């Protein structure tokens, strides 16, 4: 168990290290000079040079990298030369917005996908199962932003039930916070649930043919009862895997939904930082995304052992 954890941690640190190098290099390869952007369309060479000096982007690349990297160890992303503010508190703010949005969307997606996928599997040769499978195919084909636009034009503009866009901190106006979350969460969850339904369906279909389910049926359990008591736990592993992958993808994929709904999340921040070549902010946001992805993977690893005793036993066997 300890070896496993140590191995995981070492992978975690190495991945982060590789990520720092990769994102730093990528941002330097990108055309566009931060000083030239800050100087804009009235730039003179003197002004651009002066800004580059102020920004520190005229220093050798290894020095710039080390400057940023040494700050990272202290948990300090540094001060953005574009916005002239500390990056860390800003990123912390935006991470929370994105996490709330994505977590709620994922929860809603799972709440739809697990029952729907199970029903689709159990009734896979009945019309109702086929309808769910077909609906999920359709759902995957509808991009989230399109669903978002449709939701806005109907619920916000036509019916006037909900605000069209924006974000309010829950501490400022909790009802307003919730009201502004409804549509983006549904828009995000729509596609996700469609994707997840397919995974749940195929995972459940697979366990339905296992011997132990037949045995459970022989004990006298109903088909659904057998599936719920013995089957779903086994079907959970592939669903967990895809959920974790989708979760990481969603945080940044939500940028389109953030744009439609004008939500100030991590994706919007990253987009504007890339546009302004705010290199330090881009690097910081990417590092946070990498870290979230790695942490989610780590958590899923732990969840595997909870869901599946065999993995737990194997881990104990290692010791």
């Amino acid at each position, binding site marked *: 168990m300890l070896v496993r954890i140590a191995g995981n941690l070492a992978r975690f640190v190495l991945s982060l290290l590789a990520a720092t190098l990769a994102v730093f290099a990528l941002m330097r390869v990108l*055309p*566009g*000079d931060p000083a*030239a*952007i*800050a*100087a*804009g*369309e*009235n*730039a003179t060479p003197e*002004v651009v040079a*002066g800004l580059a000096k102020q920004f520190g982007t005229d220093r050798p690349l290894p020095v710039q990298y080390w400057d940023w990297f040494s700050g990272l160890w202290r948990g300090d992303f540094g001060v953005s030369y*574009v*916005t*002239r*503010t500390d990056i860390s508190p800003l990123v*912390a*703010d*935006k991470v*929370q917005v994105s*996490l*709330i949005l994505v*977590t*709620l969307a994922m*929860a809603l997606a799972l*709440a739809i996908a697990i029952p729907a996928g199970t029903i689709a599997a159990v009734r896979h040769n009945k019309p109702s199962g086929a309808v769910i499978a077909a609906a999920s195919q359709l759902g995957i084909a509808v991009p989230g932003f399109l669903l978002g*636009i449709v939701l*806005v034009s109907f619920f*916000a*503009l036509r019916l*006037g*039930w*909900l*605000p*069209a*866009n*924006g*974000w309010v*901190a*829950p*501490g400022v106006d909790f*009802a307003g916070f*919730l*009201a502004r*979350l*409804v549509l983006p*969460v549904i828009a995000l969850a729509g596609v996700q649930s469609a994707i997840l339904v397919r995974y749940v369906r195929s995972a459940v279909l697979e366990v339905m043919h296992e011997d132990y389910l037949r045995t459970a049926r022989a004990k006298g359990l109903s088909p659904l009862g057998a599936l719920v008591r013995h089957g779903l736990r086994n079907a959970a592993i592939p669903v967990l895997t895809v959920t974790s992958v989708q979760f990481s993808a969603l945080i940044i994929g939500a940028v389109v939904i953030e*744009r*439609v*709904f*004008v939500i*100030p999340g991590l994706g*919007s*921040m990253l987009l*504007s930082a890339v*546009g*302004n*070549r*705010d290199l330090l902010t881009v690097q910081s946001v990417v590092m946070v995304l990498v870290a979230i992805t790695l942490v989610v993977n780590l958590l899923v690893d732990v969840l595997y052992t909870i869901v599946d005793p065999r993995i737990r036993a194997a881990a104990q066997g290692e010791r």
Partner: protein
Amino acid sequence: MQAILTARRGRRGARLAAVLAALLMLAACSAGSTGGAPVNKDKLVVALTGEPVNLDFTTTAGAAIPQAMMANVYEGLVTLDQTGAIRPLLATKWETSNMNKSYTFTLVEGATFSNGAAFEAEDVKFSIERVKSAAWLNGLKSKMDDVQDVVVNSATSVTVNLARPSQAWLYSMTTLVGAMFDPSGVDDLANNPVGTGPYKLASWARGESINLVARPDYWGTAPGIKDVSLRYFADAIATTNALSSGDVDVIYNMQAPELLSSFESNPAYQVLEGTSNGEVILSMNNKAKPFNDKRVRQAVLYAIDRKAVRDTAWNGLGTLVGGPVPPTDPYYEDLNDRYPFDPAKARALLQEAGAQDLKITFTVPTRPYATAVSEIVQSQLRDVGIDAKIASAEFPAVWLDQVFTSHDYQMSVILAVEARDLLTMFDDPNYYIGYDNSKIKDEAAAADASDEANYVEGMKNVVRTIVDDAPVDTLFIFPNISVAKAGISGLGANSVTEALNLAPIAWS
């Protein structure tokens, strides 16, 4: 501060997440309509596109910063009215002496900065000298190059001595280079602006809104609305959605004229179509083939039906002028007849220049107006035998790099927003347009140094010379479109200064 979330709330939010998911549908039912809420006359929410990256225009270019800060937080000695005429602001009056080389300003009494410091002649000296110092890193600082020295006569009188007479200098004082700063208020201009204006910064939720609050100690007429929130949107559809659902009160400088129709027919809204300083310029690289040949450039101007371009790309909004000068500038004249739409003439000119079957690259910045313009321009050029291949360039990063800095382009299109930028664009052969200024250089300098009447006449001549050489095609003057709720008054239709002047706005 209306920030996103504090760390503590975030954790609580995360813990509540599962519960909230279930409550969401309930909340949806109880949220009710947002449109019919009673108007709070102390509050105004303005939708804008393009958030400033910071608030320091002394070291960061771009229209977003002065749009929010000038007139509201910062003031100059002089300003412009809606027709473009110079009016007093922090200076009650001024007179020229020493053959128009010296300006003596009499300052208002009782003006203070938002940090409590009094506004006095020393601040004028400090502010102008600071523009000339290394502290200012903005290309516009060159507008103060002519200033020789600033002499404080008394607390309310100050004289600025110029190296040579200049009509343009006083105008520049109405722009951001004329903003007045307090020596003790310049430590953190990016986040904490300190000016003499009617508003001060209350808070800034980055990625969302800049919130301004009226200063009770403002020296002039109190603004009509106490709390103003400038909300920033990435695209135009989101702004109209927010206006329709009642979350914002005004959309200023709207970027999508095709979305106007639903508001024009609705009595709950007013649509203002004003003019601006922005010229949509089809620029050609005057130093590179094929546009180093004047005939080829003139052929382009004859080939393009500017009215059709405007009508197709921008829903018929915007002013056709025929030259790179907006109608609110004193030396404006209608030059639409200089290059009428005449494809036959264009083909003849191209033949004369030996430039048939031209293949060029048309570098188009990723901006709505540019994309909209590029396709119709491309098709009109094709009609006269110019095959323009559209190459999209990310704006600002790649466009600045490729076109503006490296001059690595043949044709591009850009909205030149800076006020009175005629000489910036054409009186500098090293500017990316690469116009050979030898014909206008002396005349422009002479006009600037003469009296007002001769200045206007001289500059008109300069403009005619430039237009004759066809370094660019001025497609149209960008309209300043605003949509506001019907109960709002005082919103200026024209955008003649770089500022969105909030103080006159009020609810009726």
